[in-house]
């Protein structure tokens, strides 16, 4: 044996074995996805948002307390401070860029960059994913080198949130944009993503090894607090079990909550290795719910939907499956949202559920209607998603006790989200999540104009086919109501209708699990789509 061991050591020495890098001036982060591009406006991927959070800043963002704050701008324009002025149906918004904001090559970030970004964003052939804000901006006035005024065609309650206006370095990108249709392949973000002039955040992208890792180093032109790490490496490891092994072996220091372990995996990991890592759970804006085909005769009856929710013991389910880390959802707005209101709840009450089903004409066990047809419903979710498949089993068993026959028919995510839901081919119910943002108006999921149909090119996410004129009116009103008190009242009415009508059954709020080393301080999970890296300069090694 000693000979074998010596031989093994000799072999490993031959191939250059060295100890793992463990200095605290370097932070290695594991995420499950690699960004396909680092261009801020082309494509939308959480992995990209996560990396770019360190290397650049949006004009505005929601902070960890879900307040709207300026990041690249100096002050939020409001009607009260006079920086926002109503112009007919639209609004003029004046922003000043942070006075010290400078691209990594020393060129100041100016209004010219904003105008350039707007031109790129408006151009239909550049391949930008989300063009809405760029098309709503009808003109930009350059007030001075660091101040500009946006003219927006519509005044909405969130008029001063311009998260999606991604400033671009005109001095580097103008040439690539000369031929707009080729811009997405000629942009410097593709051809030379480590060019310092592309970045103005606390860190800049220093190395891109496609599919493997991205290295970020401190940006000398950053105007804010000095970042603590000499180097941050973001490694893509798609397999979460391999990710855990990498963490335990010291190959990575932390697993990002935005793109990391599921809550069950994190709970199991914490039980085994909790003493070595800090695991924090943050309920996020992933609304796990059951969508329903409201044309299905059984599900069209509100009493049946209410009975189905009453028949579920969601508190026990989340406690047993997720140790309570993923809170029960009682409505469509997260309790963390400033517009959340306490409205009708449907606690577990099998007797009341049974009474409602009787009243709706579904009687006996298993339940049948007057024609003798059984109350049988199909339940679909994304095949291979262990959490959802587990939840599905619990739902099936609890509804069976009510006499409802649930047939599970799962589909790959590609089929469910690419065909079944958008083409409205769902026969019964589907368990999945809607992703939202703070005070996100549910136009796409609840407004009757958003029911996918051939006539509208199958657009919209109101896949259940929910129609309620009062809900349409409230959605339209909320979007343009500037008075927060009045808007809160509208939101309350909308939430009450949702809770009573139950166009979808709320289940729970999915949480993010951040697995951090004990020595890392300052990471503040947001729970919304804004990544934690937007405040990476506050991350510090301690102890």
């Amino acid at each position, binding site marked *: 044996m000693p000979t074998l061991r010596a031989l093994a050591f000799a072999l*490993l020495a031959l*191939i*250059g*074995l060295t*100890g*793992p*890098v463990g200095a605290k001036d370097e932070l290695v982060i594991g995420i499950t996805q690699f960004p*396909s*591009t680092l261009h801020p406006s*082309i494509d*939308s991927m959480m992995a990209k948002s996560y990396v770019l959070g360190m290397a650049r800043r949006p004009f505005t963002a929601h902070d960890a307390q879900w307040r709207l704050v300026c990041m690249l701008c100096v002050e939020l324009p409001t009607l009260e401070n006079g920086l926002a002025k109503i112009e007919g149906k639209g609004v003029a918004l004046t922003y000043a860029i942070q006075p010290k904001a400078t691209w990594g090559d020393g060129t100041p970030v100016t209004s010219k960059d904003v105008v350039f970004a707007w031109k790129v964003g408006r151009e*239909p*052939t550049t*391949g930008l*994913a*989300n*063009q*809405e804000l760029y098309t709503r901006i009808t003109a930009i006035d350059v007030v001075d080198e660091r101040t500009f005024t946006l003219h927006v065609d519509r005044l909405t309650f969130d008029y001063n949130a311009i998260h999606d206006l991604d400033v671009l370095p005109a001095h580097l990108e103008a040439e690539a944009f000369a031929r707009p249709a080729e811009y997405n*392949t000629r*942009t410097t973000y*593709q051809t030379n993503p480590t060019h310092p002039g592309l970045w103005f955040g606390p860190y800049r992208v220093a190395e891109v*090894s*496609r*599919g*493997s*890792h991205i*290295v970020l180093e401190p940006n000398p032109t950053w105007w804010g607090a000095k970042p603590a790490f000499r180097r941050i*490496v973001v*490694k*893509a*490891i*798609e*397999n979460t*079990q*391999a990710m855990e*092994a*990498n963490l335990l*072996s010291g*190959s990575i220091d932390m697993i990002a909550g935005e793109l990391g372990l599921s809550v069950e995996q994190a709970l199991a990991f914490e039980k085994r290795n909790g003493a070595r890592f800090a695991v924090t759970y943050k309920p996020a804006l992933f609304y796990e719910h059951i969508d329903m085909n409201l044309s299905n005769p059984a599900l069209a009856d509100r009493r049946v939907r209410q009975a189905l929710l009453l028949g579920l013991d969601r508190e026990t389910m989340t406690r047993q499956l997720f140790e309570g880390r993923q809170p029960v959802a009682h409505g469509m707005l997260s309790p963390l949202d400033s517009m959340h209101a306490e409205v009708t709840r449907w606690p577990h009450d099998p007797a009341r559920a049974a009474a409602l089903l009787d009243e709706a004409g579904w009687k006996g066990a298993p339940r049948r209607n007057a024609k003798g047809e059984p109350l049988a419903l199909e339940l679909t979710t994304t095949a291979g998603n262990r959490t959802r498949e587990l939840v599905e089993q619990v739902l099936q068993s609890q509804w069976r006790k009510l006499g409802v026959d649930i047939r599970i028919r799962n589909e790959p*995510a*590609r*089929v469910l*989200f*690419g*065909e*079944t*839901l*958008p083409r409205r081919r769902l026969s019964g119910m589907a368990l999945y999540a*809607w*992703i*939202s*943002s703070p005070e*996100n108006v549910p136009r*796409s999921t609840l407004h009757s104009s*958003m029911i996918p149909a051939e006539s*509208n*090119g199958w*657009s*919209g*996410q109101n896949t259940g086919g929910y129609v309620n004129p009062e809900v349409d009116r409230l959605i339209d009103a909320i979007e343009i109501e500037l008075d927060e008190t009045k808007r809160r009242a509208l939101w309350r009415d909308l939430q009450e209708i949702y809770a009573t009508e139950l166009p979808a059954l709320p289940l729970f709020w999915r949480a993010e699990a951040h697995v951090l080393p004990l020595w890392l301080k300052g990471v503040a999970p947001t729970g919304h789509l804004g990544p934690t890296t937007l405040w990476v300069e506050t991350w510090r090694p301690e102890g």
Partner: protein
Amino acid sequence: MLRHLAGRIGQSAVVLLIMSFVVYGLIGLMPGDPIDLMISSNPKLTPADAERLRHLYGLDQPLLGRWWAWLGAALSGDFGHSRLYARPVLEVMAAPLVNTLLLMGTALTLSLAIALPLGVLAGTRPGGWFDRAANLLAFAGISMPVFWLGLMLIVLFAVRLGWLPASGVETVGGGDRARHMVLPVLTLALAGIGQHLRYMRAAMIETLRQDWIRTARAKGLSWRRVVLRHALRHALTPVATVVALEAGALFSGALITETVFAWPGMGKLIYDSVMGNDFNLALATLLLATAVTLAANVAADFAYAALDPRITWR
């Protein structure tokens, strides 16, 4: 021989043409499109955005017309840009191709270097203790899921012992690619050894039963000479076929192993391109794998002639 070669090249070209159409059609027939998936993960995307993106990427055009346009460009050497990576397809493929060739080539070499001698030895004494031990090794290699084996190796060598890195191609700064290759190569090689060993053993047993082997022995040739000079050469023919069929994997990668070891290779690239409806990238990668498999099979035909004197080209 030249005529035969020309014929095989012609056949391969037809196969590639059909393959390109089939691949294009299959990707196009997949339910939904990447824009639908984009909408489900990005609440800010509007119906207008979706329509514009579909038009921009040609996803609203008839499939046949798109394939025809692609074929015309490809025949002139332009494989287009990847929709997912917004870069020329050949540029996107370059690094993963090198990674895959390195990984798969090393694993195949290691696997053959271990499996062939063991297979020959096992085949010469079927039922003996060595044969039984070799079979045990072979079945263990074949039966163990690559996914599980990879994770076990990571747990042992990276987590418990801390000797080797758990994943990736190299540490930031580079220079330690060999260390990163050890575990994925070992995983693939262990799985391959079992398969190659069984083929070699079976071919050797079959060959040693031939009359001409008995004749060679009767002529007084030593057992070692009969096995190494005559039987081995003959037994390698079916093994060459198997290795030729595996050649495509040298370019198409090993998805599971690449995923477990976060090794950015062709397997993952092909998977992502197919799932993301990146027609240009998917076609280029899959056709490359097909072309290599076809070329390897042509090479195998010539190897038969070299290995078996009874085969001649007319």
